[in-house]
């Protein structure tokens, strides 16, 4: 048996994720069928609800923004051979940073306050990722385990802060008071109105543009910079990296810090762009779905944007679907995320072999 068969580039880039998504839809369709609903009708509602109207599209792009950030976060670490599953915790801490800035420096003018909030989000996310990165680089503890622990620590810390420290005394809910308007990332419909374009109200805000800029920046970093090259070498062959004079320790820490900073984008979109206050568990699993997004996008920023769009469609369409067909709840997206991770990640080798075999109708005798 050949361990890894080389696929043509187009198959590598397009076919593997496409097959994974097709399999995910097929299996999800079976689940829908299993609970006694019509999968075709469900798909129609899904697409109609997410892409069929300008309003739906706005919501879809809002969710996609979250997935771009968390997908990029997973991908940057993945290129360095690190599996950062701590996006949830990093985004949570970033949310704390956002709240600190927006609540305590609210008197600053918007052009100062918004960048400061964004920077603090990145900083706090990065700091929460730094510790696992440092522990892996210097103490040899595995980043997977430590980021899992840090997710729970972030969760517990946030409950404590929101219940005991940050909560508005008058409020019964564990949430802060509203951020001042100067700290809001402007809504897309408001911006468009400024240009004389009427767009329906949605949660979509300018964080989307930030996410797209981040995607380009990550592409430049990974594929066009010295640092990115070092990251990829460490990811593919740490021993070779050492001989090439690259410090594996340094790259491990740098990749984790960048990854955490990107995860912080989730807090910007959700809190500064939409909620305008700090709430509990705003990360809502976006960090984990980011793993699916990164795997489906093959770690490439363009692929990640497309995969994020798909999950945005699923998220928004899923919300519509749960209105129309109450038996199909939004948890279906979690199922699909799981299937995609399984297909595009863990079972990737199987699909590659199947695709390779079907691309070569007459396999060589030696294969």
């Amino acid at each position, binding site marked *: 048996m050949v361990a890894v068969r080389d696929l043509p580039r187009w198959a590598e880039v397009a076919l593997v994720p496409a097959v994974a998504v097709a399999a995910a839809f097929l299996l999800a369709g079976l689940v829908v069928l299993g609970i006694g609903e019509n999968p075709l009708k469900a798909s129609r509602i899904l697409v109609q609800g997410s892409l069929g109207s300008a309003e739906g599209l706005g919501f879809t792009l809002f969710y996609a923004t979250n997935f771009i950030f968390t997908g990029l976060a997973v991908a940057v670490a993945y290129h360095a051979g690190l599996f950062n599953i701590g996006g949830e915790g990093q985004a949570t801490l970033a949310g704390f940073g956002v709240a600190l800035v927006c609540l305590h420096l609210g008197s600053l003018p918007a052009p100062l306050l918004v960048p400061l909030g964004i920077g603090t989000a990145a900083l706090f996310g990065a700091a929460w990722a730094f510790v696992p990165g440092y522990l892996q680089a210097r103490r040899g503890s595995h980043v997977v385990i430590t980021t899992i622990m840090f997710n729970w620590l972030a969760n517990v810390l946030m409950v404590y802060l929101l219940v005991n420290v940050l909560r508005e005394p008058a409020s019964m809910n564990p949430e802060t008071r509203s951020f001042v308007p100067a700290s809001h990332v402007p809504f897309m419909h408001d911006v468009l109105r400024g240009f004389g374009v009427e767009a329906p109200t949605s949660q979509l805000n300018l964080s989307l543009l930030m996410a797209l800029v981040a995607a380009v920046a990550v592409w430049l970093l990974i594929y066009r910079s010295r640092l990115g090259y070092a990251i990829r070498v460490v990811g593919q062959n740490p021993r070779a990296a050492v001989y090439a004079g690259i410090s594996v320790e340094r790259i491990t820490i740098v990749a984790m810090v960048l990854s955490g900073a990107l995860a912080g984008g989730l807090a910007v979109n959700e809190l500064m762009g939409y909620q305008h206050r700090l709430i509990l568990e705003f990360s809502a699993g976006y960090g984990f779905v980011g793993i699916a997004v990164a795997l489906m996008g093959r770690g490439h920023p363009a692929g990640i944007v497309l995969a994020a769009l798909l999950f945005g469609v699923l998220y928004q369409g899923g919300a519509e679907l749960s209105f129309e067909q109450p038996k199909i709840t939004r948890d279906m997206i979690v199922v699909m995320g799981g299937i995609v991770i*399984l297909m595009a990640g863990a*079972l990737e080798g199987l699909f590659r072999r199947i695709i390779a075999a079907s691309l070569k109708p007459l396999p060589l005798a030696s294969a």
Partner: protein
Amino acid sequence: MDAAGLLALLDSGLRLSIPLLFACLAGLWSEKSGVVDIGLEGKMLAAAFAAGAAAYATASAWVGLAAALAASAAFAVLHGFASISQRGNQIVSGVAINMLALGLTAVLGHAWFGQGGRTPPVDGAGRFGDVVLGHSVLVYVALLAVPLTAWGLAQTRFGLRVRAVGENPAAVDTAGVSVEGLRYAAVLIGGLLCGLGGAYLAIAQSAGFIPNMTAGKGFIALAALIFARWRAWPALGTCYLFGLLDAAAIRLQGTVLPGIGEVPVQAVQALPYLMTVVLLGGLIGRAVPPRAAGVPYVKER
């Protein structure tokens, strides 16, 4: 605190430690064979749902247990297929299993029972009642699983081979023993143990399934496994300690300790994670996993 209060605390600590113990031993078997399993949480959750649903449908705790074992074993086989047969990334597979279980239990629970994802309450013969000293039979199964695991891994031929395959699979392969077979067996044992843990949660400790009722217990079990440095008896001690912390956190709510002030419950809840990170950081001893853990075995030809 008086003697009765202390006894009650120790008792509820035991109750709360049982799911941790099942999952921890499951992780122990799997990782000793070289297969990293971060899907403990998902398997336990799937098992809890299967137990709740089947016990409600048949009003039999034993059918519930069988369903739990089957559901968890199915996910274990999936993990085995991805990470042993297909040599996929074991972490990725574990993440997928956690998400699949979380999503599927919610979707199916909602569709079948329509009570916000809960199963209807199970009682009477549908639950494992208390048999001895106010504990159900599953508590004793868990406690029995500790010496069995310790003995099985240390003293039996199978256990020796499982440990060997987690340290140096090539040597086992050279000796003519199937690496894949051993790893599947160990992963399956882990699946069954998670199944017991899930059944305990849904139809012994509680009276039915609640969405996401594992609430991170699978991950605390993972922490306990590291803390116990992949050994069965220390696993018992660590799980009991973590269970006790959990019980204490519930009791400490709102009490004021002299000299310290009010202890936030969250500080106690954070301890298992914090202790594990500190241990992993090498600040108190070292935790070294089995050498081949996480590495798929490629047979050389």
